[in-house]
């Protein structure tokens, strides 16, 4: 009788310990992005890149299986936080990556960091997490919001643009982008419109474009991520501004908007300039493999969102390789990640003390590739090893 009880207890214990043992054999990564709403197209691109990275790694990091759990934030901070809670508390993931939107990341970061897990931003770069709110377990494989528009401001100076008209959405990142270009641009900002953004965002820019045209500015700077970018550029062309008001943008003209603009025959975007830390034609082995395999699989160029997501997985892999997949020693994992010792698709980069990349920024131009597909091409390097402005506020 006692023997039987013992046997059952032993059996139960074995059964209970089984999944635990199973967990120890895998690296668990939660990935929060937007998979529904019109912004879902961005999330799909990121998901495809993550899956490609896992495939390139043969499904294993340091001999352990990679287990990625995707969650949809629905473009809302409160949902993003709920999903992050679930990943950390129920699924017990080791890393949480993803996050397109700054406000979603800010709402969710505490959950991950308080639980002592690693948080990797694959896109959003709010100043808070780069400066005062920096954390030893927070890493970025993208950029700080202000950096790309600062590079654009520098380009405008170099191109001798004397006056600029600015149009951007009226929310946190939009304000960061405008602040970034204003900081670096030495000419005069002759007009500025901040348009309604969010659930009932404004997509008809007729009034703003008429004002920009009447202002007589030398150039037009915009920031419209996602589908709003395509809409803006269409109206820019329909208003006939291509020759009189050259377009300069950040995070607007990408491989998500370009195929749509091409199918709608919006030639006004050809030759338009944008600044970015990466481009599909960037010449390094890791990027060539990433872009070629992504194109072969999905038929389009990967977007910068995809590049950053791919790098997030590769960053985790670098840490797992260095530590032999041992998650128990957090300091070792963190030290390995700080080295950024992996073949990034942007080429080599290093981390500042706030764990934001110190990296190059390039000027890109829209061209047609050999097959006639519209894409962006690197024109030149604007900033070399550029570090964000908030690192001094970080007390790490």
């Amino acid at each position, binding site marked *: 009788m006692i023997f039987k009880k013992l046997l059952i207890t032993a059996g139960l214990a074995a059964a209970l310990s089984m999944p635990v043992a199973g967990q120890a054999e895998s690296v668990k990564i939660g990935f929060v992005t937007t998979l529904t*709403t019109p912004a879902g197209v961005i999330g799909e691109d990121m998901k495809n890149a993550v899956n490609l990275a896992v495939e390139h790694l043969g499904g294993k990091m340091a001999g352990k299986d990679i287990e990625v759990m995707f969650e949809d934030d629905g473009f809302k901070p409160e949902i993003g936080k709920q999903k992050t809670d679930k990943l950390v508390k129920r699924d017990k993931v080791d890393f949480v990556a993803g996050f397109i939107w700054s406000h979603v990341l800010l709402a969710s970061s505490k959950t991950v960091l308080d639980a002592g897990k690693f948080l990797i931003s694959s896109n959003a770069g709010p100043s808070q997490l780069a400066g005062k709110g920096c954390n030893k377990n927070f890493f970025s494989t993208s950029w700080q919001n202000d950096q790309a528009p600062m590079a654009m401001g520098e380009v405008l100076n170099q191109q001798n643009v004397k006056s600029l008209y600015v149009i951007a959405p009226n929310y946190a990142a939009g304000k960061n982008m405008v602040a970034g270009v204003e900081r670096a641009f030495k000419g005069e900002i002759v007009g500025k*419109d*901040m348009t309604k953004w969010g659930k009932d965002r404004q997509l*008809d820019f007729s009034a703003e474009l008429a004002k920009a045209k009447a202002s007589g500015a030398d150039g037009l700077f915009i920031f419209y991520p996602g589908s709003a970018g395509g809409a803006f550029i269409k109206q820019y062309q*329909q208003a006939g501004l291509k020759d009189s008001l050259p377009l300069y943008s950040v995070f607007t003209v990408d491989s998500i908007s370009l195929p*749509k603009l091409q*199918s709608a025959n919006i030639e006004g975007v050809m030759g338009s300039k944008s600044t970015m830390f990466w481009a599909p034609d960037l010449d390094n082995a890791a990027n060539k493999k990433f872009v070629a395999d992504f194109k072969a699989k999905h038929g389009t160029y990967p977007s910068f969102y995809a590049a950053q997501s791919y790098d997030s997985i590769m960053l985790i892999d670098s840490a797992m390789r260095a530590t032999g997949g041992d998650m128990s020693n957090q300091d070792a994992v963190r030290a390995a990640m700080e080295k950024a010792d992996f073949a990034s698709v942007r080429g080599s980069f290093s981390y500042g003390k706030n764990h934001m990349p110190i990296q190059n920024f390039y000027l890109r131009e829209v061209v047609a590739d050999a097959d006639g597909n519209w894409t962006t091409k690197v024109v030149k390097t604007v900033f070399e090893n550029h570090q964000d402005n908030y690192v001094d506020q970080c007390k790490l």
Partner: protein
Amino acid sequence: MDWHLLISQLLNGLQLGLLLFLLASGLSLIFGIMDFINLAHGSFYMVGAFVGASVVSLTGSLIIAAVATLIAMLVLGILVDTLIARKLYGQDHLDQVLVTFGLILVFDTLAHIIWGSAGATIPLPEVLNGQLEIAGFVIPTYRLLIIGCGLLVALGSYFLVTRSRLGMLIRAGASNRAMVTALGVNIDRLYLIVFAIGAAMAGFAGFLIAPITEASIGMGNEIIIIAFVVVIVGGIGSVKGAFYGAILIGFIDTLGRSYLDDLLKIFISNQSAETAAPALSAMLVYVLMAVVLVFKPEGLFPPSGFNKK
């Protein structure tokens, strides 16, 4: 004062107003005649845009797509009326709001399944992507086309409402529903026709805007709120009210976005004007609605003989 800019902005306001009219006239009639709050009216706008985009990509013709969209939307309107909305006429407004909110989710998810999350574009022929120069004014050709189509539909609905038997019934239904029923008019059929026409006009508006903003999931939810404001400002159940209300809102929204920051700069510092202007111009139409509700709670142009409840 830059008159050139002002006239461009007035035309932009007119274009926005006419699009709003296409949406709001159907919404207003459905609300006024059937006493039915249709939150899903914006979904018709979205479906119209997607159907139009699909037909254009299949046939390459904008005209075929316009006709196909109108027919498809009439059919969809008939289906929604017979299968869902009919059971809700005369019910509590809360029930209607709940069901039509559910419909929004259903339509959004269906659009996601059928057309994907990327949205769909309607390519325009070279001519329509260009600009026209009239008396020194350079105006995007396609926006003129929207204005033309909008005015045509407005004129058509004016004649329909004031000169036809159907229009008479619609007007009668809007002023006194109970009496129309008591007089033996087939009210189910009247409701069906109004609902289908409303859906078709909303779908047509979506089709018209798609070449500018592209068809995307949830696009109707973005504009339906403003359409409700138009209905309230114009007067519930009045096509004439929907027309003037929509044009008014179109002008106020566009002129607010154009001139409010300059206007504020006269009174406050440049920097605070830049911060305050976007928030204020987004609020302007609601401010107008509040003012109208205070001074003319039944709207600017209520249906004649409108019985104040």
